[in-house]
């Protein structure tokens, strides 16, 4: 074999191995990211399930005190029922946002019942739900970061070529409820 041919063979070998290795690394990292999205969602789901399980306990503790507040109980049970029919991330997120909203209203009304506020079971449940909501907020942020990175990657060249071949679609973000983003109206009434 001519020395020039040996050199060219080696150059082509490096280019081939390098290209295949590079595209394999893109493929593997996209698979890893896709699984990370599933994992991040599963981690939110665990907390949502825990919060969901706390609701009947909360209702049981409060119904004796808040007998005249049928409306808030109904909203809570409607939101809980809506969760059963939720399939996609968006539907699930909407249902969870409805529960968050209903819980907010529920605790606001509970403020009017001093006896209930003094009940240990109620305070511990309120604290537990509040901790769960903080953890859900953190994990939602993490999930959304993972999804945003994935969605960016599958649109960038050369990753988009591999993602196209794998038929990867952008993942859905777990969006926060619009009403939670609105500015709170605060009006001060000045008396002369």
């Amino acid at each position, binding site marked *: 074999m001519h020395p020039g041919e040996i050199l060219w063979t*080696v150059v082509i070998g490096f280019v081939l191995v390098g290209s295949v290795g*590079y595209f394999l690394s893109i493929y593997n990292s996209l698979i890893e990211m896709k699984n990370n999205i599933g994992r991040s969602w599963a981690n939110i789901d665990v907390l949502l399930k825990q919060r969901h399980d706390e609701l009947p306990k909360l209702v049981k503790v409060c119904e004796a005190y808040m007998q005249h507040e049928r409306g808030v109980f109904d909203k809570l049970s409607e939101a809980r029922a809506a969760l059963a029919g939720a399939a996609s991330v968006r539907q699930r997120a909407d249902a969870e946002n409805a529960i968050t909203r209903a819980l907010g209203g529920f605790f606001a009304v509970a403020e009017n019942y001093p006896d209930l506020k003094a009940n240990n079971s109620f305070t511990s449940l309120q604290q537990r739900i509040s901790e769960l909501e903080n953890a859900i907020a953190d994990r939602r942020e993490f999930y959304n*970061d993972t999804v945003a990175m994935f969605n960016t990657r599958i649109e960038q060249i050369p990753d988009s070529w591999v993602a196209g071949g794998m038929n990867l679609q952008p993942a859905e973000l777990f969006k926060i409820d619009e009403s939670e983003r609105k500015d709170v109206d605060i009006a001060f009434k000045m008396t002369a």
Partner: protein
Amino acid sequence: MIPIQATLFSVGSLGFGVWAFLHGFRSLRTWRVIRDTPTARVRSMAMGMVELNGTVEPRSDTVAPFTGKSCVFWEVEISTLSGRSRGGRTNWHVVHRNRSGNPFYLRDETGVALVYPQGADVKVGFGAEETTHGLGVPEMYMQYMEQQGLGMRRMWAIGAMRFRERALEPGVRLYVLGRAHPKAMARDVSFDDIEMQATGTDGWRAKRVREVDPDVRGVIRSGQKGEPYLMSQTSEAGMTLEYGVRAFGGLIGGPLLACFGLWCLLELARTGSFFR
């Protein structure tokens, strides 16, 4: 350059180029993991690969062996002089490397995690470095080598030696990329402070462990073989840049160097000056 040197240089270039090329893939994987893993908060971190940023806190009494500084992690390196290049650069040969294995806490604004440094690639600058110029080394180094049972210590001390130490001091910010595991289940057998004090083993550190350990949200340690486990005082952006340069440097520079080495070898073979 005489042919034997040229031959060795060519073989070296070829070998190093291939090594850099293969190593480039490893760095590429680490680069991707750093880039594709979002930073988590300790309170809500999920088990599995995580990236955290926080402040280090001690869990046990750890003292750096050379400087005697109180720290959460240390690593030392002892080298002997292996030669000097023509440019006057000294080449050192590492004869001993050691690091502490004590776990420490990593705290961010939401919680605390326990970090086991075994197997981690720790990117912390050498804070202390001393070079001896032969005919003996200071007593503290000799004592350390004796404790470690380094049989060649007296012979090494005749020539020039270099002692380096890196230490992570409490309160520094640290970037950690590793695998989070659930905290081991542990149960207190005694809650009675007076009884504990009576045992004489309940120092302030033990108390601190008892206070902080229940708040630990998870344990960070090395994962499966080949999985990156990094700790660094550099930011995530700095780490991404470092591994990106390593990866693409290896993947592009490696083959170029290997091809150059091969070309030199082929030229030597063509002119018939191999090992002549």
